[in-house]
């Protein structure tokens, strides 16, 4: 039955179009792809590169408002473009499975995990319900989920994000498919959780010799997972080769630029020994309800310095920002600004105190009022705090737009919806600058952006700091960003400051055990990194 060739999936000259308003726009412009049995192919590219669209096309599926307009898709000899809906439905879940980016959003919150696990195999007639249940337990064990015998009987909200992602991978494995499509399965996870999920996925894919399309924007992750890598840009292939040679010697400029991002770092400024800090947080304890989210947190931020606050979700980073801005008055402790205590509640702060500390948000989409034009978004703080009116205000807005490298004439009358993600974030920066503050809180400002765009934002922030003597508090979970921009680092875990100090000290041993775990969990470009790390950790626990 099996021919000499062991090609599982081929795509030839694939074209996919999406509908916007009145016309069809090409999203994927003639991509060729070949996947052998048991092979893992990494698809990488920025948002809008067409990665996920190609992944879905492998199942013969196009999202609403999209259509496959040209090319061939052949899965194990079956033409997926002409196959009937019934035939494709028979393949999906059974021979081709899909793991989505956000497991939390993809599981049905009203059913237990094991019910959702069993649905596929039972419906496809592969197993009976009882077999499916015992099989689930087995796979949960192999995915190294805690308590594999009973975890299936929980509801999705009773399980953590990383565990849910693994449960979803187990579910995709249920019918032992030939091909699994992983669509950014670890993007929403913390670095330490990401490792566990990556290890589990790689393990199980190897055990069952499953082929996989691994879609991600993170090069270091794909380096661990894939045998071959295909780089995509705006719906077209840039280059493809096996992982090692791709990492060692990318041939195309675009690929090289992706690699280069990781190596950017600015020189650390010498630590401040004397002088008054702009902002100091003194023994702050704060929380919601009966729970203390922050416990006795203290650190200083000096003028013209960037302090990165690092930690996983739930570590209290953002709560610290809320205490500083006055949204959450602390239970104990205080926040000093230039040596003076700030009133704990922002409503009691003077206009000048509010002006001095500005904030840039993670999601520029929700941080800019969609119904206001750039003119008002950027102009309002200048009008309010500095009393600029008419011509002076107009000039100031134009000056601010030039500062963030956006042509004032083109953008001043646009709405946020007419900007790209990176441009929106720039407007967020301009709005903060308009108040002429001394101190800016940057809350995960780059985490929703593509690497190259994020790089531009970091450089901009860096330049503005020099020009306007700004102090930054940079909240992030991404240690690469820390390396790129920080002078000092504060590591937080469960609401406690675990370690703080200059960046150079942070990235050199000895570390606090938690910092060590965090640092070692950041994926590196070396394809052997994950294997090496897991081995090292295993021996450490054995010994």
């Amino acid at each position: 039955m099996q021919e000499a060739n062991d090609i599982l999936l081929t795509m030839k000259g694939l074209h996919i179009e999406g509908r916007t308003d009145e016309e069809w726009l090409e999203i994927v412009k003639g991509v060729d792809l070949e996947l052998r049995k048991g092979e893992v192919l990494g698809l990488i590219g920025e948002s809008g590169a067409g990665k996920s669209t190609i992944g879905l096309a492998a199942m013969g599926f196009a999202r609403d408002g999209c259509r496959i307009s040209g090319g061939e898709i052949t899965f194990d000899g079956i033409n997926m473009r002409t196959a009937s809906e019934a035939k494709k439905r028979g393949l999906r879940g059974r021979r081709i499975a899909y793991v989505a980016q956000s497991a939390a959003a993809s599981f049905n919150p009203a059913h237990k995990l094991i019910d959702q696990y069993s649905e596929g195999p039972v419906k496809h007639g592969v197993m009976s319900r009882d077999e499916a249940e015992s099989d689930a337990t087995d796979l949960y064990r192999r995915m190294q989920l805690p308590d594999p015998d009973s975890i299936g009987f929980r509801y999705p909200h009773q399980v953590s994000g990383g565990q849910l992602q693994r449960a979803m991978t187990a579910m995709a494995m249920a019918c032992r498919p030939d091909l699994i499509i992983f669509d950014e399965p670890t993007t929403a996870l913390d670095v330490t959780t990401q490792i566990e999920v990556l290890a589990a996925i790689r393990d199980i894919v190897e055990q069952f010799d499953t082929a996989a399309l691994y879609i991600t924007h993170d090069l270091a992750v794909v380096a661990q997972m894939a045998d071959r890598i295909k780089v995509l840009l705006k719906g077209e292939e840039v280059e493809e080769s096996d992982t090692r040679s791709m990492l060692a010697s990318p041939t195309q400029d675009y690929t090289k630029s992706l690699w280069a991002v990781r190596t950017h770092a600015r020189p650390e400024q010498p630590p401040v020994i004397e002088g008054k800090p702009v902002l100091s947080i003194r023994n702050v304890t704060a929380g919601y309800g009966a729970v203390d989210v922050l416990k006795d947190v203290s650190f200083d931020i000096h003028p013209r310095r960037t302090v990165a606050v690092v930690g996983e979700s739930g570590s209290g980073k953002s709560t610290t920002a809320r205490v500083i801005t006055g949204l959450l008055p602390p239970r104990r402790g205080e926040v000093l600004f230039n040596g003076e205590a700030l009133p704990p509640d922002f409503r009691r702060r003077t206009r000048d105190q509010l002006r001095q500390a500005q904030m840039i948000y993670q999601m520029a989409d929700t941080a800019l009022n969609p119904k206001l034009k750039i003119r008002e978004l950027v102009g309002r703080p200048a009008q309010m705090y500095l009393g600029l009116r008419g011509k002076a205000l107009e000039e100031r807005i134009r000056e601010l737009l030039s500062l963030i490298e956006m042509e004032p004439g083109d953008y001043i009358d646009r709405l946020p919806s007419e900007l790209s993600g990176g441009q929106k974030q720039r407007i967020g920066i301009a709005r903060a600058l308009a108040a002429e503050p001394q101190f800016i809180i940057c809350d995960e400002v780059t985490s929703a952006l593509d690497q190259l765009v994020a790089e531009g934002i970091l450089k901009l922030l860096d330049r503005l700091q020099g020009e306007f003597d700004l102090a930054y508090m940079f909240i992030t979970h991404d240690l690469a960003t820390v390396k790129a921009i920080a002078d000092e680092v504060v590591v937080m875990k469960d609401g406690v400051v675990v370690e703080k100090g200059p960046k150079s000290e942070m990235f050199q041993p000895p570390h606090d055990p938690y910092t060590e775990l965090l640092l070692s969990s950041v994926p590196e470009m070396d394809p052997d990194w994950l294997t090496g790390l897991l081995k090292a950790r295993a021996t450490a626990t054995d010994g």
Partner: protein
Amino acid sequence: MGLFTGLFWLAVAIILGLAAGWIFRVAVVAASPRPIARELRTAPLTASFGMLVILIYIVVAVFAPLVAPFPETEVVGTEYQPWDDVHVLGTDNLGRDMLSRLIYAARNTVGIAFITTALAFILGVMTGLLAASVGGWVDQVLSRAVDVLMAIPALIFALLLLTIVGTSIVNMILVIALIDSTRVFRLARAVAMNIVVMDYVEAARLRGEGLLRLNIREILPNAMAPLVAEFGLRFCFVFLMISALSFLGLGIQPPTADWGSMVKDNATLISFGDITPLLPAGAIALLTVCVNFVVDWQLHRASGLKE
């Protein structure tokens, strides 16, 4: 056979209506400046027809004395005269010209309904946004007060209040506006609740914006789409409520013409197979449908929904 001809005329009416809508759209697009023309071109035929009819109602209402062949309240013939060349739609129970009263009633009924709805919205949206943006006890007090008002059936409550304060047009407007504002409050509060948690509202608060500006510049523009849709619907309900109250004799007082009481006054004609009393009811129905055509179109545009 009767059903068949009925359907035939219905189809003809729909086709004529859409054709009128199309001609109207072409004419308006040609006549308006470019940015407005571009928006209007996207209007579906139903919405164009709706706009045309609303426009006609407005013109008729504004120029009623010029359009109407007879005065509003004068007795110009005998009772219940049939349709003829002088009295195109016949006369009513007192011998007043039916067509003239229909035209004047557009002025009274539509004008009063519009003022009432606008008042209900001003009151409901203001309190709703206030409750959502301030929260705490302000929200509690307002919401519970509204709960109490809403617990009493609207029509009975309106009758009760009108009996207490006495029947006059001003009182009726205020009473209906008050009752309707409770529904608007619920909607405005619910919509605003989703908006006040957005980062841009937080940013505005941290900037030190006052409550008024926070509501008017940050929250209200983002709540407009559902509120506009609700306005269209509420307008129709108010309309029906005024007509209902007039029918019961507590609304617009005679001899002022209004569609609701015109149905009541001439209702006996129906027993003789004369459709004249249904004309005012038809006028109400047509306006209701047309307002909703336009509102639907606006809602689709504002919410970014595509068909």
